């Protein structure tokens, strides 16, 4: 007797894409807001960008790009039933995600030490354009950071599911969808790098 299990991988991926589309609109709105404010305060944005640590931004870009690669390689490994390799790739992604957050933490704490944090007294003494710049900087990199944390949580579950064969060669749409989320987080960072860190 064979048990009938309903499965629709295409539908699952389409559903994930529809969710990702809402994420694109969420960040897209912030990007549009950024472009207007940069148009309005070009000098202040130029100055604000100069205050950010471009090196850390570039390192974090390479970290996220590589973590995206290892997710997609983990999917290839699962497709080929190379379980151990898939787990190594996913573990690498988790490690790189943590590295990203640690670097981000150092960067933010340096800003905090200079009195630059949302609603700080020092921030309120800066010209309006720079206040807007830092407002957008903390909002957009903060919202992105939340997405990194969520992505790490989801991918940790995937690592567990690969280990326990819940995700395997003939059943890996969950891993694909988690990967899609992680890649979108990477794409958002691809835009954040030139908009903030390379703005000077």
């Amino acid at each position, binding site marked *: 007797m064979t048990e009938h299990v309903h499965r629709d991988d295409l539908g699952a*991926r*389409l559903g994930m*894409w*529809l969710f990702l*589309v809402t994420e*694109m*609109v969420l960040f*897209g*709105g912030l*990007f*549009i807001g950024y*472009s*207007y404010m940069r*148009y309005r305060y070009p000098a202040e944005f130029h100055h604000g960008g100069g205050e950010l640590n*471009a090196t850390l931004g*570039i390192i974090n*870009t*390479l970290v996220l*790009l*590589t973590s*995206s*690669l290892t*997710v*997609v*390689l983990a999917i*290839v490994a699962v*497709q080929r039933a190379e379980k151990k390799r898939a787990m190594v790739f996913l573990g690498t992604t988790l490690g790189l995600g943590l590295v990203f957050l640690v670097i981000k933490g150092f960067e933010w704490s340096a800003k905090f030490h200079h009195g630059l944090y949302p609603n700080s007294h020092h921030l309120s003494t800066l010209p309006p354009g720079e206040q807007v710049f830092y407002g957008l900087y903390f909002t957009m990199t903060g919202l992105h950071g939340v997405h990194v944390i969520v992505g790490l949580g989801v991918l940790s579950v995937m690592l567990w599911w690969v280990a326990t064969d819940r995700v395997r060669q*003939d059943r890996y749409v969950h891993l*694909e969808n988690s*990967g*899609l989320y992680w*890649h*979108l987080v*990477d*794409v958002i960072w*691809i*835009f954040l*790098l*030139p*908009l903030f860190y*390379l703005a000077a």
Partner: protein
Amino acid sequence: MSEHAEHSSEHAEHPGYGTFIKIWVILVVLTGCLVGVSHLGQTAAVWGLLTLTPLKAGLVFYYFMHLKYEGPLFKVVVLVTLGTLLIFFALLFSDVAFR
């Protein structure tokens, strides 16, 4: 049995490790170019931002997110979203331009 055959033929179409590693190399090189042009002055930096960044995002969408291997429906969903964002962008700046 037939389902199994379908699965294995689908399996044969999956790209291997090499494809994605190549894309990653291109992404790293493009990041280097983006950082490079950002030192060449404001105009070059803005052009770099407007060309290299969407190119990088496109590569991630097309290869890492497997859009290349999906049907037209997925591509349409993404394009409609990007088009909508572009319309809102155009509306905002048409308002800004005539204030």
